């Protein structure tokens, strides 16, 4: 038994070493830098909690945090609902199911930079879908500047990100739904259950572990979102699409405030840790099945 454990540890050792090098080391350095005034070039000087206290008086940071929360709420509701609905409907069809699965999944395998660039063209107020529809006699979107209007830019970027993401959820939920015992549905139908009741009382409880895991990852990923926002708007106009990661990037690499950026990084890590902690608490202490 000890030999088997040793072998297991030997197999895991390289990965553990890489993670220590790539995550733990820099992570600890980040915690240290978050207590300094490091500008990225000169030697850092300790400033205590000054970066953290400054963060909570920084309107840009607070607005970015609010955007992360809105983003999380959007992705916990819209793509999760679409994913569940899409997967459930796909379990009901036999013909062309594979075609739909592929169609839903294709956006997910397109490189983010490629799909974001295409979407930027589509949403362009001078050469995108608005002017094109206007040329066809449909003027509704002609004067809508999806990425230039601060009131709708964040929602637009979330829409584009959702376009790529929800098909992935369909495939994952479908795989989980296909493992449900068919006799459960047959028994429910014999008892007179309609489709909605089948979904609510059989499908949803059966896939709860998958659902909870994806919800957890959605929260974590929502706080780490960067790529689509950076490519489409770089956080603009005037911070209306800023999230914590874009503010952190700007502070570290444009404003020479690496210490301040590290404090944002630590806050992000704490949010992720709290999310995972909550998940573990529900599973271990409250014995939730997930």
């Amino acid at each position, binding site marked *: 038994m000890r030999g088997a454990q040793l072998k297991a540890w030997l197999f895991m050792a390289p990965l553990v070493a890489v993670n220590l090098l790539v995550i733990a080391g*820099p992570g600890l350095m980040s915690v240290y830098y978050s207590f300094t005034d490091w500008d990225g070039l000169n030697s850092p000087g300790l400033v205590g909690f000054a970066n953290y206290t400054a963060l909570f008086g920084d309107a840009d940071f607070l607005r970015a945090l609010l955007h992360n929360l809105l983003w999380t709420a959007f992705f916990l509701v819209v793509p999760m609902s679409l994913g569940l609905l899409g997967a459930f409907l796909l379990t009901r069809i036999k013909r062309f199911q594979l075609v739909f699965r592929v169609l839903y999944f294709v956006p997910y395998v397109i490189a983010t930079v490629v799909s974001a660039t295409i979407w930027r063209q589509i949403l362009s107020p001078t050469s995108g879908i608005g002017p094109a529809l206007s040329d066809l006699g449909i003027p509704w979107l002609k004067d809508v500047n999806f990425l230039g209007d601060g009131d709708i830019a964040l929602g637009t970027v979330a829409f584009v990100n959702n376009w790529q*993401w929800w098909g992935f959820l369909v495939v994952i939920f479908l795989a989980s739904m296909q493992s449900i015992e068919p006799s459960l549905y047959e028994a429910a139908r014999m008892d007179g259950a309609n489709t909605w009741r089948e979904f609510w009382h059989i499908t949803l409880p059966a896939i709860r572990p998958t659902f909870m895991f994806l919800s957890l990852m959605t929260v974590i990923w929502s706080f780490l979102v960067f790529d689509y926002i950076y490519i489409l708007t770089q956080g603009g*106009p*005037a911070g209306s699409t800023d999230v914590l990661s874009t503010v952190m990037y700007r502070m570290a690499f444009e404003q020479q405030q690496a210490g301040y950026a590290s404090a944002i990084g630590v806050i992000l890590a704490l949010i992720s840790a709290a999310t995972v902690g909550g998940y573990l608490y529900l599973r271990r202490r409250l014995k939730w099945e997930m």
Partner: protein
Amino acid sequence: MPSPMSRRSLIKLGGGLLTAGTLAACGSGSSSGSGTVTYWAAFTGSDVERYFKKNFIDRFNKSTKSVQVRMDVKQLQTLGKLTDTAVAAGRGPDVVYSDGPSSALSFAKSSNTVPLDSYAKKYGWQDKFLPWAWEASKVDGKLYSVPVGYGSVVLYYSPAVFKKNGWAVPKSLAEFEDICTAAKAKGMIPVGAGNSGYTAQSEWYLTAFLNAAAGPQALYEALTGKRPWDDKVFVDAITLYKQQIDKGWWGGAPDRYFTNTDTDMFTGLAQGKVAMYITGTWSFASADSFFTGDQKWEWAPLPSLSDTVKPGVFPLAIGTALSVNARAKNPAGAAEFIDSMIADPQDMLDYLAATGTNPAPLKFDQSAYPPSTDDRVARLYQTIQQSTNLGYASWCFMPPKSDTYLYTEFDKVITGSMKPAEFCKGLQKTFADELAAGSVPSPFEPTS
């Protein structure tokens, strides 16, 4: 949602800066063997890269046996950040690129680059450079960088479009406003502007506006700490700019500003949809690609946008400067390579003629421009050399944090979430800290 890969990327970012360590490990570094000098460069195109390699790198390597330069070509958009990160990690190439004196000053202040005064004396650099560029390259009285590319900000226009509309190149605020009003009425974008894809584009327009509306004298006083940035002259300039943006003169409309790109504006200029475009002379190298057939672009000096500023100001900018890494094993070799680029001003003029690349700010003989040089390009550098109306580009003369403040916070002025006075007050606060820290490049004294 981000993919797992992007999550890892973000952990890298959040890890502060862990990128520094990663790049340090991957970079070619300054651990060159004796006689080898490493140099990171970036070019606007493969033909420019070929020309530079053949005429600067290969020729240098053939001419000397003791020093060999090894050039690594990077992406133009990322060279600055790559260099910053690698140098911060104590690595980077022997010959350090920076996009102007402001960045070079940061390297010098952190002791990542070395003073070049002994090499300057040995090679007689001071006599070769235009005085303003020489002064701007000094930190605390010592030379830390050598400028190898400079330019200005000018007004681009299509002579055919101007002729068709009966417009003359504007020289005053009234003339500028007349053209903007007329162009807007015709459904054109009066002045091209936008920062989509590159937020720092805003500083091109701000540089133009501050020089043309506040003037070089006020800017000089502000850059030397004698006049605060929240002085009325700057608040008035920013207020005027904001009013013009609200009228849809810059970029077509305030919201369009955030989705317009540099390419969009040049394309519009060529198609007659944009009346004027104010941007840097680095676009001389690419402007022709937008104008097909008999269409031509032309440039003019900036108009005056205030009664107190003379028309025709040329904001000066060093766009490329080279320093020697403090960890270079062969600093003398690195300096020798830098000298080879500027030793003969004719080499720079040939480079300018062949590729349109902005030359080093050297004292060129007015008749030395090769016949193949585009007349518009030669005229710019001849005019600047004779002009006494010289101004200051923000990315060259503003310290790093103030410069970043300028183009990131100005977005808020455009959307209306920040008043011009608040913007100027914030700029003054940021600038004052950097001035106290000695992080402001030395501006030349106004000559007009």
